C-alpha cells in the first residue's frame, strides 16, 4: 500500500505530552521537531526525549519523521548521531539550499548507520526548502539522493527571504510550482508548508484546496485539529470515484479486445486518464483503511 502523506503533524521535540500522544490524531506522518520549535537551551533535552520516544513508544504504522537542526549550526550532527540510531523512517533536513547540503547530510547518516549496524540506506530523507536559493535549486536538490522521499516548502523563512509576508498565497505561487515540478521530475512527493492560524479553519481549507489543485501530496500541520478537515478535502468525491471506476472498467474491456484506448460516454480514455483514475482509487483505498491497531 502506498504511503500517504496528506498530513505531517509537527510535534515539538521537547513536549513529552504531545510526543506520547502524537499517533492518536490520525495523521499520515508524525514529524518530531528538534529545530525551530525548540529553544536553544532545550536542544539537548529534546534530542534525548525524541530518541527515547522512538526507542520505547509504539506509534503503529505511522511514518515517523524527525526534523533535525541544519548541519551548519553544529547541532545537526549531534541530532543525527542520536536520532539515526533510533531508526526513524525519515530525517528531515531544514533550510536546504543546494544538492551539496543533502549529500553532506547523507554521508553522515550513512556513517552512523554503518557504525550502529543499521542497514546503510535504510533511513529515508526529506528536504525542506526555505529560501530563494533553495527554490531555484529545487530540482538538483530533489535529485541529489535516492533516500529522498519528498521535498517540502518552508514558507515562513522563504517569505522573509523574499522580503515579503504571508498573505493570500500569491507570494508562494512561484515556489510552490517550482517545488512541485522538481518533485514530480524526480519522482518524489511534494509537501506543502504549515498554515499557522489554527483557529481559521476557513482560511486553512482555502489553502488546502489550492495546494490540492496544484498537485501537492499533502501538507504539514501544526495542530491536530487541522488533520480531519485536511483529509476530508483530499478524499475523492463520490462522483469522481464513480467516474474513475467506470474508466478502469472501460479500459479493462478495451485491453481484452487488444486496444489501449477506450471510449466512455463519448470521451476518449487514454493512458493519462487511466493513470489519474488509478491514482484516485489508490488514494481512496489508502485513505479508507481505518487503522484499528494494537499499538
Amino acid at each position, binding site marked *: 500500500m502506498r504511503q500517504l502523506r496528506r498530513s505531517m503533524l509537527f510535534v515539538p521535540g521537547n513536549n513529552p*505530552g504531545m510526543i*506520547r*500522544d502524537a499517533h*492518536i*490524531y490520525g495523521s499520515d506522518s508524525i514529524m518530531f521537531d528538534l529545530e525551530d520549535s525548540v529553544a536553544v537551551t532545550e536542544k539537548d533535552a529534546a534530542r534525548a526525549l525524541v530518541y527515547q520516544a522512538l526507542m520505547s*513508544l*509504539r506509534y503503529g504504522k505511522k511514518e515517523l519523521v524527525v526534523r533535525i537542526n541544519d548541519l551548519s549550526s553544529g547541532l545537526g550532527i549531534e541530532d543525527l548521531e542520536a536520532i539515526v540510531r533510533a531508526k526513524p523512517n525519515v530525517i528531515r533536513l531544514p533550510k536546504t539550499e543546494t544538492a551539496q547540503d543533502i549529500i553532506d547530510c547523507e554521508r553522515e547518516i550513512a556513517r552512523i548507520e554503518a557504525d550502529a549496524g543499521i542497514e546503510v540506506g535504510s533511513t529515508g530523507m526529506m528536504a525542506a526548502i526555505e529560501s530563494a536559493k533553495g527554490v531555484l535549486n529545487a530540482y538538483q536538490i530533489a535529485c541529489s539522493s535516492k533516500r529522498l522521499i519528498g521535498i517540502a516548502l518552508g514558507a515562513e523563512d522563504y517569505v522573509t527571504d523574499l522580503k515579503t509576508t504571508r498573505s493570500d498565497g500569491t507570494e508562494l505561487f512561484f515556489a510552490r510550482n517550482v517545488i512541485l515540478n522538481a518533485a514530480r521530475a524526480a519522482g518524489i512527493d511534494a509537501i506543502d508548508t504549515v498554515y499557522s492560524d489554527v483557529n481559521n479553519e476557513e482560511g486553512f481549507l482555502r489553502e488546502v484546496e489550492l495546494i490540492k489543485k496544484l498537485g501537492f501530496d499533502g501538507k504539514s500541520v501544526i*495542530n*491536530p*485539529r487541522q488533520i480531519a478537515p485536511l483529509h476530508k478535502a483530499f478524499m475523492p468525491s463520490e462522483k469522481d470515484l464513480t467516474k474513475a471506476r467506470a474508466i478502469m472498467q472501460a479500459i479493462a474491456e478495451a485491453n481484452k479486445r487488444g486496444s489501449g484506448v477506450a471510449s466512455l460516454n463519448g470521451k476518449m480514455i487514454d493512458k493519462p486518464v487511466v493513470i489519474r483514475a488509478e491514482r484516485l482509487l489508490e488514494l481512496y483505498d489508502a485513505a479508507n483503511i*481505518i487503522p*484499528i491497531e*494494537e*499499538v
Partner: protein
Amino acid sequence: MDKSIIDSIPHISEINAQHGAFNGVLPQQTQTFQDRMLTKNKILPSIREAIIRTGLKDGMTISFHHHFRNGDYIINLVMDEIAKMGIKGLTIAASSLNEVHAPLIKHIQNGVVKHIETSGMRGELAEQISRGLMEFPVVFRSHGGRAAAIESGEVKIDVAFLGAPSCDPYGNANGYSREQDNATSCGSLGYAKLDALYARQTVILTDHIVRFPNAPFAISEANVNYVVRVDAIGDAQGIMSGSTRFTKNPKELLIAKTAADVIEASGYFYDGFSMQMGSGGASLATARFLREKMERDNIRCRFALGGITGQIVEMHEEGLIDRILDVQSFDLIAAESLKNNRFHQQIDASYYASIINGGAAVNQLDFVVLSALEIDVNFNINVLTGSDGVIRGAIGGHPDTADGASISIIVAPLTRGRIPTIVKKVNTIVTPGAIVDVVVTDQGIAVNPLRPEIKDRLLSAGLPVFDIETLQRRAERIVGVPEDICYTDKIVGVVMYRDNTVIDVIRQVEE
C-alpha cells in the same frame, strides 16, 4: 352560634370541628399590601437571630446546598456565627463542598462540627480529612442517594441554611432575580428545594430581597421559616462562568467525537431520545458532535437532563431539544434560559435521581456521558479520590445516572500526565462496573462484556473497540505502574451507593 346546634350536626364526631363555633374575626388589616410586606414578614435582622429562633442546639444536623460552587460565602458565614455562639457537635449535611470551605477545618478542630455528609470535597479540607482530621468518617452520597436519605428520614435535617440570589419577605426564593439583570445568579436551586421541603426549619439567606411574590419561585414560602439579608451570598466569578468554554484541547475533542460516534452506533440514537452530558471538557464537547449528527439525520432529543450548560440551551433554542430538566445550572446562559424559556424546567434532587422516586428523571435516560478519575478492568469508576489517595472530587450524579440510563458512556484520557486512568483496581469504587457500559478514551473504546450487543454494534460501525485489559496494558506501557498508595487502617470516608448501601471506604493516607 349555639353549641346545641353544633352538637346536633349529623356525624359531628367524624367531622373535624374541634375548634368549635365561630367566634368573631380579628381586627381587619387596613395597611396596603406594600406596607404590610415591610412590617409583617419572615425577615430577621441577622444570621445570629435566625440561629436563635430556629433553636439550633448541640448535636443537631444542618444543611447547605452547593449551587454557589467555589464562590459560596454562606457556609462559612453561618458556621462562623454558630461557632461564636458556642454550639457544638453538629452534623453538616451539604449537597457538596468545595475548596472555599477550608475554614470548616477550624470548626472541626474546635468541636463545632462532629460529622460531615456531602457529595464530595476538594482542597485543604479534603486534604486534612484524608489525613485523619475527623474521628467520625465523612459520608459521601450521590445526589440521588442524598435525596433518598432525606426522603426516607435516614438524614434528618434540623435546620437548612440556604443561600438564594433572590427572595421575597415571605421566603419565596429563586436562583436568579427577575427584578435585576446583573444580580448574583446560580440558576436552578434543585438541591436546595429538597432541603427546604424536608428540613424541620429553613432559613433563606439572600443578598437581594424582592417584593412579594417572587414568582415563579424555586422554593415556596410554605417551606421557609425565616429570611435573612446578607451583604453578599457569594463571589459571582466563583459561582459560575459566563458560558462553559468549548474545549479546544485536541485530545478532548478526539474523545468527544468518538463518544458521539459511539452514541450514534449504540442503538440509542433515534428521534425522541433522552440524554445527559456530565461535566468535564470531553463530555460537554460530545454534545457539539452529537448536534451535527442530529441536524444531519433530522433527529430530536425529547429531553436533556442534569447539570445544564449553554450548549444544551443553544440546542434547545434551535429546536433540537424539546425539554430541559435542570437540577443544577452550570453557566450563566443556562441560568438565563431557566428564567426565560418555558420548557426549561427546574427540578429537585429527588425528581432528578432519588431511588425512592419511581419516576426519577435519571430512569428515563437513554444515555449519559460521564467522566472519571479512574476506571478499572472491571469497569468500576472512581471520581472521588486522586492517584495519591487523597479526596479530590465529588460523586455528583455519577452512579445515579449510570444506573438509570440505558447506556452509560465514560469518557477519559487513557493517561493524565504520568498517571494511568485505566488501572487494574480503582482506589475507590463510586460507580460499580455492572452499570458502566462503554469507556471511551483517546486510544480506543472498551465495552463491558455484560453488553455484547453494544460491542457488536460499535464494531459493525468500524469503531476501534478493544478489551479493557488491552487499554489498561497500553496505559501501563506508556506511564508504568504507579507505586502503591500507603494507607493506615483508619477509615476517614464512607462511600454510599445510590441506594445508600456502603460500596467502599476511604482510608487515611499515610504521611
